[in-house]
């Protein structure tokens, strides 16, 4: 962990992972890009939509016995509603993503992109993709839009960019997301998890739901 201060408003900043290259100041909403020891202010991040997500930066949970903490957020909007990819650091040293929307949760980690991945346009629902030794089926294709981000992120994002994504399902609870905002696409694999299994703490509180 390292600390610094926001070049825009001077508020103290704590940077939790070395992997973070992008930071959104929690006080003034400035988007800060990290270059070695310096933080560059590249302008205000767009405002997040109130999507009723129960997660927030600082929320903690446990996945398969390993504790994690949420340190960043990408908020996406699909035709089917909002979806968040929460960037999390795990106690075993990994960083991963807690996907969340409409009370459904998925934990994913970036995997090596297989060679010769089809272009987004050529991908069809029902297609089978082989990633490593595993087979996945394409279950959903959507042109999501990144509304805004928050906290620390491992890559540089602008608000309001288009993110074509495909969801894939493997056997059992195996699940994955293929992010086509660049090519070759980024592949994230993991599994669907029920809320109760993640033993969350530090969630948002809602009126009438305490």
């Amino acid at each position: 962990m390292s600390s610094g201060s926001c070049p825009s408003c001077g508020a103290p900043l704590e940077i939790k992972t070395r992997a973070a290259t992008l930071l959104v100041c929690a006080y003034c909403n400035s988007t800060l890009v990290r270059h070695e020891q310096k933080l560059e202010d590249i302008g205000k991040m767009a405002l997040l939509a109130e999507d009723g997500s129960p997660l927030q930066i600082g929320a903690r949970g446990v996945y398969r016995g390993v504790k994690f903490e949420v340190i960043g957020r990408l908020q996406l909007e699909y035709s089917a509603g909002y979806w968040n990819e929460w960037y999390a650091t795990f106690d075993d040293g990994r960083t991963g993503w807690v996907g969340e929307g409409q009370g459904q949760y998925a934990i994913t980690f970036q995997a090596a992109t297989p060679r010769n991945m089809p272009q987004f346009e050529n991908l069809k629902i029902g297609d089978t993709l082989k990633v490593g030794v595993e087979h996945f089926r394409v279950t959903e294709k959507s042109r999501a839009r990144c509304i805004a981000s928050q906290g620390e992120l491992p890559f540089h994002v602008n608000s309001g960019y288009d993110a074509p994504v495909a969801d894939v399902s493997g056997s059992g609870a195996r699940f994955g997301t293929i992010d086509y905002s660049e090519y070759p696409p980024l592949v994230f694999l993991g599994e669907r998890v029920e809320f109760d299994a993640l033993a969350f703490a530090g969630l948002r509180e809602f009126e009438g739901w305490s």
Partner: protein
Amino acid sequence: VNPKKAGPAALVRAVKCSKCGAPIELRSPSSLSVACGSCGSVLDPRTPDLALIAAAAKRQEKYRPRIPLGHKGRLKGEVFQCIGYMARRTKVDGQPYTWHEYLLFNPYKGYRWLVEYQGHWTSVKPAHVTPEASATGGLRFFGEDYRHFQSCRAEVVFVVGEFYWQVRVGDSAELEDYVCPPSILSIERTADETSCSVGTYVTGQEVWQAFQLPGEPPETTGVAPAQPSPIQPDVGKSWALFAALCLVTIAIHSFVVSISQNKRIWQGRFNYDAAEAEKSKVTEVFEITGRTSNVVIKTSARVDNHWLFAGYALINEGTGVAIDFGREVSYYHGYDGGESWAEGSTSDEVVIPQVPAGRYYLRVEPQSDTSPVLYEVEVWRDVPQLFPLLMSWFILAIPALIASLRQYTFEVRRWSESDHPMITTEE
């Protein structure tokens, strides 16, 4: 988002219907549509002016949610709020079947459904694990086999409240139900997506208690697809009890065998001759000992396409009390139309129960349709019998057989509404 802001966030948003002006409470920020409870217009809550998604369908007064929108309930330990209600209908052979679906919301756990059909309720949640095809043509989910129950096309006929997709009256979807009571897997297909959910049977009483609803839940009709059989536990228990009692009867039988004499006490041969003036024979006196028990008389005769009838009297020498009985030995065989046949036997056995100890002799009065006939008589004392054991098994099996029959009848009723009835009736 201001990180310094403390206290619970408000989820509920009070708005006014853009069509009729009636107040609407939006309870879930993930809702993609809301149907006004007053005029029935379906609106888009993500647009600032609640843009119209679908104009109000024809008013259908007969559909009213039994769980009022906004009501919170604790079902199986989890609190959920009822935020939407829709009635869906399918048609089988032109006959409409309508059921009721309540959308439940919890900001942490997402969505659940309560589905009611003919007073039967199912609590449904999205399946986060993909079921696999089972070897039996159904689905396999968490180690259980689900059997296909029915497939149908469902159409939305009434809608009110919030939904996490853009709902419209007239929306249709293909449904496939697979059951493993008390659970049910439902695959729902629309043009855009396929979703899978898993439900558990709940009683109306549980729903009423969970949501603190006034009055009584609606009466149930028939057997629901996922309804657990109330008889099923009895079936296992009654067969287990039967097995246990059988062991007891076997133990009793073994004990009886161990204390039985099972002893031949007299044996002799006689000849029946039609020409003889005195055909009846008398044995010498023999001693019958031990506890009061049975005496077995075995008669065998060398008859071949003939019969021999023996009129017996077992006479107690001391008291003169006689036990009279008649036995027939007949054996017929032949060759007719290319087939050989045989009927009867050359020997016979009779059990005389409850014979007290004493000195006895046997008188035999034979008759036959042939002459001469050589026949042999044996007297056995205290021979263990298998019949009481078998009879006790039969009687002991009755409760278990009845339970199994009732279970079968229950399953027949369950599957009668499915695509695979167990008994098909000609129409």
